[in-house]
């Protein structure tokens, strides 16, 4: 235990080291208050999985937006079944599958039908390449693996790739 070299009153909790090309050329033991005055705060817990970081990285596959973190939330936009029920609106194209069981009776009530008849992009033809579901699923899985393995650079790259694929752009 050592007293603060700056105020000589409190117990030193922080060591400030002067580094020159990796070599320690000097050191100073200071207390919490003096460290803060010097602009060196107590080291915070390492940002292992900050919510923003995760949200940003998972942007391509899930956007919890601080609310829909339940396991039954839509993987595309984070909307929860409760939100869907209260708003009666879908959050993204994937919600149609996520909330299928709730959606079907709703469609029946509104339209007295549950399936589409009429124009479809595929029939219109020459559509800007529909995203290939298999490669989408593959990238999604690699992204989840990368996030789990905390390989953020790779995850960010995969997220961008996923977004491009979903928009039908060539990757």
């Amino acid at each position: 235990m050592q007293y603060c070299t700056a105020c000589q009153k409190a117990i030193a909790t922080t060591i400030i080291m002067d580094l020159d090309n990796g070599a320690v050329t000097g050191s100073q033991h200071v207390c919490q208050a003096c460290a803060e005055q010097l602009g060196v705060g107590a080291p915070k817990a390492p940002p292992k999985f900050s919510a923003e970081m995760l949200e940003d990285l998972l942007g391509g596959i899930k956007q919890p937006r601080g609310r829909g973190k339940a396991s039954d939330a839509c993987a595309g936009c984070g909307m929860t079944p409760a939100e869907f029920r209260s708003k009666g609106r879908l959050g993204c194209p994937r919600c149609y599958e996520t909330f299928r069981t709730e959606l079907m009776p709703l469609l029946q009530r509104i339209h007295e039908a549950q399936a589409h008849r009429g124009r479809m992009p595929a029939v219109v033809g020459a559509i800007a390449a529909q995203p290939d579901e298999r490669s989408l699923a593959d990238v999604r899985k690699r992204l989840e693996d990368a996030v789990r393995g905390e390989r953020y650079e790779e995850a960010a790259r995969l997220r961008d790739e996923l977004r491009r694929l979903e928009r039908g752009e060539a990757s």
Partner: protein
Amino acid sequence: MSKPRRGDKQPEFRPGTWLAGNGPENDIAICTRVRLARNLQGFPFSPCLDETESRQLFDFIVARLQQTGLPEQLKIVDLLPVEELERTVLVERHLISREMAATKRPGGVAVDAEESVAVMINEEDHLRVQVFAPGLQPAAAWQRAERLDDALIQRLPMAWSEEFGFLTSCPTNTGTGLRLSVMLHLPGLVWSEEIDKATNVAQKIHLAVRGLYGEGSRALGDFYQVSNQVTLGRDEAQIQNDVLLAVGRMVQWEREVRGALLRGSARVRTLDKVQRALGTLERAQILTSEEALGCLSALRFGIAAELVQGYETAAVNRALLLSQPGHLQRHTREVMKPEERDQRRAVLLREVLGCAR
């Protein structure tokens, strides 16, 4: 296609296609509108987008719209810098929705020179394609919308599924995403108190009857919008037939009622109503927008029934637009209190109708 611009600052007298006053059955059917709701893959639906994502979506769509070969010449208006009064003007011209005017999210509208095509970007859906045709012309409006939709589908990755068709933010639009509406002028049905019967019939066959400015708006000045409600399970041709059939009946009903209002002892009461309206338009010093719409409606009927001479339907249509608060204030180039507006409206309508003396 030009760069995004601010709203036009010049006073606007052209009534736009929806009030052009020509086209089949134009004495009763003012205009036909086709609206298609479309969304892109890779973005949550518009209500779930934050500001950055909204901007990305807007920029992405604008870039794709600016690629060559689009069947329409569209001018893009970025709404963000557009102030409140200009937004109101765009709403009154049916180019953007009231909801869109009220939001501060990035978004915009792509409009052609005649204002017969308007594509809202980042409204409730990523894209709301609107095509207007004067009079009762569902087929013509649809064909134009279909051609534009084809081009959009080639440029943009639309969200759709074989089962549900086009995927939309609200399940009321799922499937075709098509809302076909016809704006009708029905003074005969209103005056003879048969309008409730007529709207009930329309509602029974799943058509919605609304006021001039869509959902939730009251039917002012005897103007009604009739549109399909079902978008899933009926294809585009069936929807057109449904609307055409119902609107055709309403038009016929309105004609019969007008005929009755012009015969026998009813004629003098009808004439009295029309002449009183004209008297108000010619002499009033203070005119609220509601009263103005009522008088203009009566005058429009009077012209169609040849009860009044010296006035033109086209001028009445212009007056209908200019009597709206946004157009009125833009025309006079000043923001006014409601009472000042009502005074100004009385003067302006005389000018527009050609009865300023």
